[in-house]
């Protein structure tokens, strides 16, 4: 019917082709499902594949396209981290325990938004247990691997989201990000990943981790796809008590403005001393490309990270207290021991962390009076070999699992929007992300920078050669 390659194409191109009937949604859904069948055993990205319903949904989209219905994501296959409710399926959240829960009676709010826009849900994706993870390793469902080098981690906890998009199984996926779980796998798998402002998107119908830090967002192979999906995902939902009362922010139409007029700086101090050479080179390449000559110190970033760590440990343990007390043997050992320790945290520590959160928010708010964008590495290094237990940064040996998110944690701690932009350094065999951070409620600024970097060829997210 067409020479259009829906595996290599981004979601914007797919939707355009379906809307103009160059392509059918049935064709794109079938191509996605075939790709999943071909690759999933090797990558462990999907835990649940939805075939029959996906094809019937695609046929319905084709019928609607024929009536000229407004469908901005017509025929775009997508998948979601398996902490999103999918009607008729148990929401496992990466765990053994939750998979015996009754099936969800409705799709999560954001899943419904994408489906209403014509996107086709092809399944649920692997993740670190209960999202307490940066590796993508999961003892219950198997490790999710990096399509660019299958001996390495996909990154987590939205591991399947990273692996599925980077391997071309789907052009877009949804993930969650409490401390970096969208941005870390985006960095390791070479994708564009958006963590919106805290409170921007409804989290209703997803299994929580740390309510005061949980965010949801998209991962994709182009910045314009992030914008397109973000525009569709926005909408008020009284069912999420943390959702802010904010007007719709159009981002797709803003991309054409590029970086003109933006005051962009790179972060020094904490964000350089803990970075490996490849992370520094990536930030420097981006800084040079956007003319960011100023380096700024973000004071107390280490304390911000420490505060996020304390809040996460305590609030996560509170959420899982009954489960960790009654069924500790059914947890992944790598999360079990952290949840157990999290039940032992004095309230004093947690309250201090929350008060520091206010202080740090005000500090960063002042910094953003002087700048529009701040750049940092997303991760201190490229993807680690699977089963790496310790890392060495700035001469210190530390556990890998909690420390991969050193650079993402201080940012999500105060809810700032950030896009991880994929950089392939000359001669590199693995990608690494640069974190493009914007002021609260200004996702449009970070997306403009990401899109500009892709347009000029500095950032790219090719489908892995598998």
């Amino acid at each position, binding site marked *: 019917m067409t020479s259009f390659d829906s595996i290599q194409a981004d979601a914007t191109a797919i939707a355009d082709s379906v809307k103009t009937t160059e392509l059918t949604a049935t064709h794109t859904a079938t191509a996605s499902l075939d790709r999943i069948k071909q690759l999933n055993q090797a990558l462990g990205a999907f835990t649940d594949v939805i075939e029959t319903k996906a094809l019937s949904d695609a046929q319905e989209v084709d019928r609607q396209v024929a009536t000229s219905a407004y469908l901005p994501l017509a025929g775009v296959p997508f998948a979601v981290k398996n902490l999103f409710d999918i009607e008729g399926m148990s929401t496992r959240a990466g765990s053994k325990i939750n998979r015996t829960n009754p099936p969800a009676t409705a799709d999560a709010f954001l899943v419904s938004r994408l489906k209403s826009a014509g996107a086709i849900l092809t399944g649920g994706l692997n993740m670190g247990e209960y999202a307490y993870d940066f590796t993508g390793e999961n003892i219950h469902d198997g490790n999710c691997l990096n399509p660019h080098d299958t001996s390495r981690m996909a990154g987590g906890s939205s591991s399947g989201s990273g692996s599925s998009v980077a391997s071309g199984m789907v052009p877009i996926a949804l993930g969650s990000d409490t401390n970096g779980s969208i941005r870390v796998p985006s960095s390791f798998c070479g994708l564009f990943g958006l963590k919106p402002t805290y*409170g921007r998107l409804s989290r209703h119908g997803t299994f929580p981790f740390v309510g*005061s830090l949980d965010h949801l967002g998209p991962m994709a192979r182009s910045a314009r796809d992030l914008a397109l999906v973000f525009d569709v995902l926005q909408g008020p939902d009284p069912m999420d*008590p*943390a959702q802010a009362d904010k007007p719709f922010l159009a981002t797709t139409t803003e991309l054409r403005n590029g970086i003109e007029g933006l005051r962009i700086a790179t972060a020094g101090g904490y964000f350089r001393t803990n970075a490996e050479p490849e992370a520094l080179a990536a930030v420097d390449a981006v800084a040079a490309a956007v003319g960011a000559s100023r380096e700024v110190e973000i004071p*107390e970033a*280490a*304390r911000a990270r*420490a*505060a996020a*760590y*304390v809040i996460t*440990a305590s609030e996560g343990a509170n959420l899982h*207290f009954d489960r*960790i*007390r009654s069924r*500790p043997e059914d947890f992944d*050992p790598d999360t*079990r*021991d*952290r949840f*157990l*320790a*999290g*039940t*032992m*945290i*004095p309230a*004093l*520590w947690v*309250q*201090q*962390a*929350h*008060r*520091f*959160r*206010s*202080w740090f*928010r005000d500090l960063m708010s002042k910094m953003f009076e002087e700048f529009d964008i701040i750049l940092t590495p997303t991760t201190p290094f490229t993807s680690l070999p699977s089963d790496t237990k310790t890392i060495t940064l700035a001469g210190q040996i530390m*556990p890998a699992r*909690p420390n991969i998110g050193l650079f993402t944690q201080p940012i999500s701690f105060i809810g700032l929007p950030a896009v991880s932009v994929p950089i392939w350094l000359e001669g590199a065999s693995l990608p690494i992300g640069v974190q493009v951070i914007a002021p609260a409620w200004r996702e449009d600024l970070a997306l403009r920078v990401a899109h500009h970097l892709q347009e000029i060829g500095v950032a790219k997210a090719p489908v892995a050669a598998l």
Partner: protein
Amino acid sequence: MSETFDAKAHVTHMQALNELTIEDDWRPEVEAHITATKKAADLLLSFPLDDAEEAASVFVP
């Protein structure tokens, strides 16, 4: 402050308080995690916050 923190004693006490099961071979990891959290808390508690600095909250009555 972390140098004087007795993680074994803390874990033993809190295990009983919270009625937790901790197998012997899990214990070193649990102790390591609470030690790491104590270190993070020390960093926070050593920072002078103004009395007026309140926790951000999403609670709406």
